């Protein structure tokens, strides 16, 4: 998953796109070690463990879970399939770019 997300962020860096993480590692140190090791390039909320408040609110029961929001923060995808999620995100970005022209 990491290489895919990393290159997605890279590819979309000049587009109206943001990859935001909700990190559920038990400590910040653990998360930062993973970021350093895998050269991760996105900003994350601290969820403080997989029983944290954010994932509890969202009733996330399996990791990783991906949610895709459009520019108005409407939910277009929620699930565990990174490829399907990416496709939907790319379509939404393309639609925005077409509308701006």
């Amino acid at each position, binding site marked *: 998953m990491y290489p895919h997300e990393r290159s997605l962020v890279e590819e979309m860096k000049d587009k109206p*796109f943001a990859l*935001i993480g909700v990190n*559920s590692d038990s400590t910040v140190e653990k998360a930062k070690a993973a970021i350093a090791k895998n050269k991760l390039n996105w*900003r994350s909320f601290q*969820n403080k463990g997989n029983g944290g408040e954010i994932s509890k609110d969202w*009733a996330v029961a399996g990791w990783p879970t*991906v*949610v895709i929001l459009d520019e108005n923060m409407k*939910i277009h995808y*929620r699930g565990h399939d990174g490829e399907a999620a990416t496709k939907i995100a790319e379509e939404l970005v393309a639609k925005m770019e077409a509308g701006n022209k």
Partner: protein
Amino acid sequence: MRIALVLTGTLLLGFASAQDPVDPKPEAQAKASAADCAAVIQKMQQEAYTDWRASIKKAREGTANDDGKPVKAVSMRPDYGPVAKKAAEFAAQFAGTDDAVQFLMLVVQFSTDKDAQKSGIEQMLNSHIDSPALAQMGRMLDYLDRMISPEFAASTKKRLLDSKNADVRGWALLASHKGSIETADRDGAEYGTAKKALLAAADAVEDKGLAKEIRGAINLREKYGVGCDSPDIAGIDLDGVEFKLSDYKGKVIFLDFWGDW
């Protein structure tokens, strides 16, 4: 807790028979002995688990003193075969009374024989459809399609809807409509029908946990599901800097619940 109940049951029976040795109440006796049988099963279950743990420990010690011998294979789970067999015996013993349900449930849970599991469920549906104990089948319904077959799972759910017990019907409705709540078009008839049936069930069931689970499934879809306006998230990033999800409004957001494990 269950052990305490069993002991109480035995004591009560003891008193009853002491007072009236000639004509012990048959009902009280049947009840106490069903509890006794349940205790027997529970003990067997614990023993099977203890044996299994012991065999893992033994195998691990064998590996620790490794002198070139291969690692012994350890089974993936305890051998509950004898438990299932004993439960089937008890189920036959209590056939015709609702006491049989708890033993049939154990047969379905512990047997590795599909036909035995199927027959256990069929007996519960045929003879105990109105028993409150059938609500224990609730959590089983989600994996019944993998355990037996999708057709069998569907017909079981359908038949449970005929129960006179509201909790049993509630579990069956939740299992039947969960898919529609999770994925059907929220403006469509399928979603509307499922939601209406489930909300009515949530009001009707006695089990508070079940009511919460039913309402939770709908809430999840309507607040955090596809088609919803996402609630904002406010928190701190890994450097402790406060930020909000809505700071990124105006862009397509790929929200990734991740962890390194």
